[in-house]
C-alpha cells in the first residue's frame, strides 16, 4: 500500500513539528513554506520556554500543557535551549497579594516553585530592583526560535519528509464533493506554478490560518494579535524574570545570548503581513522592563520587533485561553480533507503536532500512536544536509 500523503502548509513551529510527527507515523510528508523556516510569527517569539507559571492562576489547561512540554523539550532538543531557570518577582502590594494564589495554582499544575526572600532573590540575580519584596523560582528557560524549528525540520527530513521553502500556496484544489485534494503553489525561486495532490492538507499557518481556510470556503476564528518585543544589548540576568501578577504588558524579561528581551503587548490587527512598531510601544517596554531590572534603562536598544500571535476567538485579548485548537473542517464547514491547527504557543509545539496528527490519522482511519515524546531530535544543523532549497 502507498503511504498516505500529508501536505502541510506553513514552516513555523506547528508545521515543522507536525511534519516530524507524521513522518514518524509513516506518512509521506510535504511541507510548503512561502519564506524560509520561521519567517512568520515563530521566528519572532520572545524565546521563552514557559514553565506554565504565567497561566497557572487563570488558565490551568495552558499551564499544564506548558510544564509538560517544557520538560519534554529539555529532553529531546537540549542543544537549542538555555536551561537557565526563571523567577517571578513581587515589587508591590498587588504583586504580594497574588503570591499565595500563584503558589497554590502552580502546585495544582505540578509546576515546581520555590519561595525566596528578597535577599535570596537578589543574591541569585543582583541586577533586580533592590526594592523587590519576594520571589518564586520556576523552571522557565530560553530557546533559540529558528534553531528549535530547524531541529524538528531536520529530523522530519531524515525520516523522509520533503520541506519546500520559498514556496507559496496560491490555492486549494477542491473536488466536486467539497473535498480538498491538493494545493496549488508557486515556486518563488523560479516563479513557476505547480499542483500537488495529497490525502490530507494541514493548514499550519498560525495567524494566517484564516487566509488559507477561505481558499476552500472554510472559516477559522483566528485573530492575529501582535505584541512588541524590545531587545537590549546587555544581559543583566541569568534567569527569565517575570512579574508576579495577572499577565499584562511588558512583564517578562527573557535573557538570550548576551541580551535581555522585554515583552510584550497585545492588540488585534486584520493583516499580519506587516505590523509597524510605534515609539510609545517601545517606551512602554523600556519602562515596564526597568521596573524589574533598573539597569535596562541605561542599556542600549539592540532591536525591536513585532510578532502576531494566532489567538482563537476574537475580541478577548489576554483573556483568551492560550491553548490551541485543531479544526476538522468537515465538522466545522462541511469541507473534507482539510485540517487547521492554530492557537497555542511555541512551548507547546510538540503536543500541538501530536493532536493534529491524531486528527489526521483518525480521519484517514489509520491507527498509529504518537512517539515524539521519546525521540531525541537531530542537530538543527542537519537540516541543511541537502542544502536550503528542495525541489519537487
Amino acid at each position: 500500500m502507498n503511504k498516505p500523503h500529508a501536505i502541510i502548509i506553513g514552516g513555523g513551529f506547528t508545521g515543522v513539528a507536525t511534519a516530524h510527527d507524521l513522518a514518524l507515523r509513516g506518512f509521506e510528508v510535504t511541507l510548503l513554506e512561502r519564506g524560509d523556516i520561521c519567517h512568520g510569527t515563530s521566528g519572532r517569539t520572545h524565546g521563552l520556554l514557559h514553565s506554565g507559571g504565567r497561566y497557572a492562576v487563570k488558565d490551568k489547561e495552558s499551564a499544564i500543557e506548558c510544564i509538560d512540554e517544557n520538560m519534554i523539550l529539555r529532553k529531546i532538543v537540549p542543544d537549542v535551549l538555555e536551561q537557565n531557570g526563571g523567577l517571578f518577582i513581587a515589587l508591590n502590594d498587588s504583586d504580594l497579594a497574588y503570591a499565595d494564589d500563584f503558589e497554590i495554582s502552580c502546585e495544582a499544575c505540578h509546576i515546581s516553585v520555590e519561595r525566596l526572600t528578597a535577599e535570596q532573590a537578589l543574591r541569585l540575580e543582583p541586577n533586580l530592583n533592590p526594592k523587590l519584596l519576594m520571589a518564586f523560582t520556576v523552571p522557565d528557560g530560553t530557546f533559540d526560535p529558528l534553531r528549535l524549528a530547524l531541529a524538528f525540520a531536520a529530523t522530519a527530513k531524515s525520516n523522509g519528509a520533503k520541506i519546500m521553502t520559498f514556496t507559496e500556496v496560491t490555492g486549494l484544489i477542491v473536488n466536486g464533493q467539497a473535498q480538498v485534494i491538493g494545493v496549488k503553489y508557486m515556486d518563488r525561486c523560479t516563479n513557476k506554478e505547480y499542483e500537488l495532490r495529497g490525502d490530507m492538507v494541514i493548514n499550519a499557518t498560525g495567524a494566517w490560518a484564516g487566509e488559507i481556510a477561505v481558499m476552500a470556503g472554510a472559516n477559522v476564528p483566528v485573530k492575529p494579535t501582535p505584541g512588541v518585543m524590545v531587545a537590549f544589548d546587555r544581559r543583566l540576568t541569568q534567569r527569565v524574570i517575570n512579574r508576579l501578577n495577572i499577565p499584562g504588558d511588558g512583564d517578562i524579561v527573557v535573557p538570550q545570548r548576551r541580551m535581555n528581551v522585554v515583552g510584550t503587548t497585545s492588540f488585534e490587527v486584520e493583516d499580519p503581513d506587516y505590523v509597524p512598531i510605534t515609539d510609545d510601544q517601545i517606551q512602554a517596554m523600556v519602562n515596564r522592563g526597568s521596573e524589574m531590572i533598573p539597569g535596562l534603562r541605561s542599556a542600549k536598544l539592540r532591536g525591536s520587533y513585532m510578532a502576531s500571535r494566532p489567538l482563537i476567538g476574537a475580541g478577548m485579548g489576554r483573556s483568551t485561553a492560550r491553548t490551541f485548537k485543531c479544526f476538522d473542517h468537515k465538522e466545522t464547514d462541511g469541507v473534507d480533507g482539510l485540517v487547521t491547527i492554530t492557537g497555542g504557543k511555541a512551548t507547546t509545539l510538540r503536543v500541538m503536532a501530536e493532536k493534529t496528527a491524531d486528527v489526521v490519522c483518525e480521519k484517514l482511519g489509520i491507527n498509529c500512536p504518537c512517539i515524539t515524546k521519546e525521540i531525541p531530535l537531530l542537530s538543527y544543523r542537519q537540516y541543511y544536509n541537502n542544502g536550503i532549497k528542495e525541489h519537487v
Partner: protein
Amino acid sequence: MSSEKWNVTFEVYRQVPGEKPHFDEFKLEVNPDEYVLDGIERIWAFWDRTLCFRHACHHSTCGACGMRVNGIEKLSCITLIRDVTHDGGKMRVEPLRNFPVVRDLAVDMGNFYLQMDAVHHRPVLPVSEASIEKPEETWSPEYDQYTRLSDCIECGLCISACPISGTDPNYLGPAVLAGAQQSGLSRSPQVMGLVDSENGLWRCHSVYECTAVCPSFVDPARRIMDLRKMVLVERVRRLFNRPTRTELRIEETRK
C-alpha cells in the same frame, strides 16, 4: 524612536537562479530609526511579493538575516537605517558573498552549518564556560546546572567579509575555525586534521575583517590566532611522542 520621516531608495539585488542578476529600486518613506530588515519586509509585503530573503528572530539571535548593506556585511534586523544612509539617500542591499545565492537576498548556508558540526562547535554551553559578563560575586557551583546558548549565531557575515574565503571556496573560513577554537581540539580526533590542513587555519592572512563585521563579538580573528597556538602545542606533543590532548581526554574518560 523619532517621528522623523526619510525618503530612502532601496537598491535591491535580484537574481533568479540561472539568470543574470540586476538591481531593483524601491522608494520608501521610512523612519530612520527603523531597521534595514523592516524596509526589506515592507517591500515584500506591499510592493513585490516575489522578493526572497531570509529572516526569523529580528533581534540578532538567529543569524538568518545577514546581508551586505552598502557593501558592508550587516545583520539587517539590528542595523538602523539612520546608520547606513541619509534622507533622500540610497541604500544598496546585496546577499552575502561566498555563499550560493538561492534567490535574491537568500543564500544557502548548508555547507557552513555542516562544517560547524564537523568541528564540534557546541550550540549550548554550561554557564561556567560561556563568555558572558557574569555577576562574579554571586558565582557559585550551582550555576553549573544552567546552560547558555553560544555567542556565535552562525550568520556567516565573517565568511562573506573574509578575503580568503572570497578567493577559495574550500577555505574553512573564520566562523568554523573560531568554532573549533571554542570547542577545543580534544572533542574529536578529526578536528585537528580538519583545521591543520591546507584549507584550514594557516590560510588566514590576519586581515581581521571577520572580527570587524561580527555582530556577536565572537572575535574570530583572535580565536584563529589562538587556535594556531593550540595546534602547534599539539604538534610538538606528537613530535615527542607525548600523549596528545585527545588521547589524554580519552584516557580520562576511561578512568
